[in-house]
């Protein structure tokens, strides 16, 4: 496992606060342009953030109290996998982790799309696996009634994760031989059909995409409750948790108490334990990197940050902290540095920060938080950090193909 805390920035629209677009300036009109996304992701890349995640959904946006599309906040967005692919050539080291749903999509397209992202980014692709639970999304596809229960959605997601993983392994590293003497481009014994027949999905053949640089891009899953943690233990390489996320019932900091606390809180321990228990129950001896999801507004002082959050809440007409699944922190760079250190000492691999305002807070993460973490010895300097594939950066072991020939099968040089 990586010794220094992992830092991931979660990108979504103009930021995670529903009123953030009102302070985004001209960016609010450019949310569907490549220019906007390239600017935001390149900034993270240059600073040395380990990865960015890109949210996605088939809905146009959230609903208001009348059950209609809430056009007081950002509505409309782009496909996350394609945005990640488009910014890949402009970036050098940052991991690119789009959300790709498994509920209404074709596992074959999901697998090949992510493999292609891994090829174009030279090994920096990841996959935030997600289900699409809403009836609204089901109605846009019109293939099933919608309203599937969580157990059904997770069962389907497990099958898709399995079949995608098989497709990712379907080409051996050395399948392409280009043997002019026999006229053979590939050794077909080194390509394996997925041969997966499930209750929800079936895929017969091999991927059309040759094995990608990482083999299997790391899979991220959110484990905010027990069934999701069990799913993550089965399907994910990296687990996101929301310690102290208040949800509708009230607000609390991730390590207990409101705002960042310097003690080791029960909430953070509990969220981590949920994942470790699930790993144990699944019989997995892998201790997955667990990242704490924190929604952050970063100010020059705690009071300035609190005022800015209050202003956004007033503009939105409701408290974001009461709606968010992750803890919402109006905070400062020094407080965040200290919190990252505390979480690391509890056993967290790092954090995924959800900037409440993009670009303001994402810029603060890149330009102020990262250097402060370096100064605190919690990160290596960009210049001294070797460029590596995303699995390595996250402390996830290299992906060995399920079809890998054992040493005994291979010729031993004399």
């Amino acid at each position, binding site marked *: 496992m990586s010794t220094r805390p992992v830092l991931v920035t979660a990108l979504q629209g103009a930021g995670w606060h529903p009123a953030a*677009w*009102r302070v985004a300036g001209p960016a*609010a*009109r450019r949310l*569907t*342009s*490549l220019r906007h996304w*390239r600017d935001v992701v390149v900034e993270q890349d240059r600073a040395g953030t380990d990865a960015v995640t890109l949210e996605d959904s088939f809905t*146009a946006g959230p609903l208001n109290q009348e059950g*209609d*599309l809430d*056009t*007081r*906040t*950002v*509505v*409309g967005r*782009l*496909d996350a*996998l*394609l*945005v990640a*692919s*488009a910014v*890949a*050539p402009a970036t050098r080291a940052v991991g690119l982790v789009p959300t790709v749903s498994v509920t209404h999509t*074709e*596992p*074959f*397209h999901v697998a*090949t*799309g992510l*493999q*292609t*992202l891994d*090829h*174009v980014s*030279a090994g920096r692709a990841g996959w935030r696996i997600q289900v699409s639970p809403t009836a*609204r999304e089901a*109605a*846009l*596809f*019109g293939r099933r009634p919608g309203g599937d229960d969580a157990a059904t959605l997770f069962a389907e997601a497990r099958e898709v994760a399995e079949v995608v993983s098989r497709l990712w392994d379907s080409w051996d590293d050395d399948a*392409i031989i*280009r043997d002019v003497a026999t*006229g053979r*481009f*590939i050794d*077909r014994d080194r*390509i394996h059909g997925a041969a997966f027949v499930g209750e929800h*999905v*079936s*895929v*017969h*053949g*091999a991927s*059309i*995409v*040759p094995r990608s640089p990482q083999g299997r891009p790391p899979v991220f899953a959110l484990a905010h409750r027990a069934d999701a943690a069990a799913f993550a233990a089965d399907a994910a390489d990296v687990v996101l948790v929301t310690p102290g996320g208040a949800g509708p019932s009230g607000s609390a900091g991730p390590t207990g108490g409101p705002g960042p606390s310097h003690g080791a809180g029960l909430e953070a321990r509990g969220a981590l334990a949920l994942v470790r228990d699930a790993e144990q129950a699944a019989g997995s001896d892998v201790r997955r990197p667990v990242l704490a999801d924190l929604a952050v507004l970063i100010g020059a002082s705690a009071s300035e940050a609190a005022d800015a959050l209050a202003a956004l809440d007033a*503009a939105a007409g409701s408290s974001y902290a009461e709606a968010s699944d992750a803890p919402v922190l109006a905070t400062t760079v020094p407080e965040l540095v200290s919190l990252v250190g505390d979480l690391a000492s509890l056993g967290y691999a790092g954090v995924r920060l959800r900037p409440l305002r993009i670009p303001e807070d994402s810029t603060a993460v890149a330009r102020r938080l990262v250097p402060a973490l370096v100064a605190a010895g919690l990160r290596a300097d960009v210049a001294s950090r070797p460029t590596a594939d995303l699995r390595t950066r996250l402390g996830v072991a290299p992906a060995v193909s399920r079809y890998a020939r054992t040493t005994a099968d291979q010729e031993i040089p004399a």
Partner: protein
Amino acid sequence: MSTKRQVHLAAHFPGVNNTTVWSDDRAESQIAFSSFEHFARNAERGCFDFLFLAEGLRLREQKGRIHDLDVVGRPNTLAILAALAGVTSHIGLVGTLQTTFNEPVELAEQLATLDHLTDGRAGWNVVTSSDAFHGANFRRGGFLDHADRYTRADEFVTLARELWDSWAPDAVVADAAGGVFADRSRIRDVDHHGPQFDVRGTFPVPRSPQRHPVVVQAGDSDEGRDLAARQAEVVFSLHTEFDDARAFRADLTERLARVGRSEDELLVLPGATFVLGDTAADAEERSRAIRRAQVSPATAIAFLEQVWNRDLSGHDVDGPLPDVEPDVDAETITRGRVRHVRDPRATVQAWRDRADAEHLSTRDLVIAVSTRGGFVGTPSHIASEIDRYVQERASDGFVVVPHTNPYGLDEFVDRVVPLLQERGVYRQAYDDGATLRSTLGLPGHVLDRQEVSA
């Protein structure tokens, strides 16, 4: 201003068939992004209208095993086009995408995204399939009757356009002071109920720069041509011989008239290979060498097996054609590609007659009968041929299919493009900020024109 008709060119990324010579000394990876980037930048240097990419849904098979003699493996079409959006500025990016193994809302969302990411340079080659071979890789399998392929494709495109139209161009207002991000009254929910699709709700992507990505069609059957006449803006045709090309174009013009569209609303671009030489003889010599590289001994046998429909692996390709008769009763041994031969017995007889008459070995016969749609000659000969096709309405240009990846297009760009420009029939530069539709010189949107003519 020139009154000459303008040539339009598309660059076909080398495919997974034996046109692509992977054994060439300069051939590079078919999957590395550097290959795609070189190819796209070079096509853009040559002011091509668009780059064209085929799609793979299953690895091709012969005799129950993956066909291993051609290039195998390619990227996901949408993801690689999105990546190319990041390294190009003017050239159109057109991908082949199935209507059978996709759902309209998802594909429309992806294509609208690509159109945003490229500032209006996206295109969609609509293809249909129904076979269980490809279907085995997808949720619903080979669920579609052959006859319903075009019904579904037609409804799919119509529905995609409904989705793309559902956001008015000015729906996003971003009025920070008033707290209104979008004007709800300018976002229409889609409520579509047809034989193939039931789709209801709000499309997730705001109006894209072209409104509709350019629709391309390649099917050559009667239904394919009708679909092109109703829905397409560009046809990628197989008809490269001059008279055949002109007849095909005339046929499409008639079909267009039947649905109230004019011939200027649909560009016809035959796919063709181009072999250049300093002299005609030099070009012929290079062409022969390329044909031999394309038809290796193993490829010649595989080609025979597709017609004979039986194992011929022991056959000597330097000798005469096999004595045995084709197996016309067994299930076809070739899967994942279009079968070209309808009457194997007659084909075999014709080939035997030709091989006897011209004293051809098996391999030479295969080379002779599988050569099609190519232009061979000096750059000036080729430029004048392209010009002739376009001025005499046999085509509106060509889809250039190179032999090697990724440098196969370079010579065409260096040597033919300048001659077309000198002739005043090809652009010297792209128009600033042009969408693909305006680069193609197309008048507007299919839907607008249908509304006008309705």
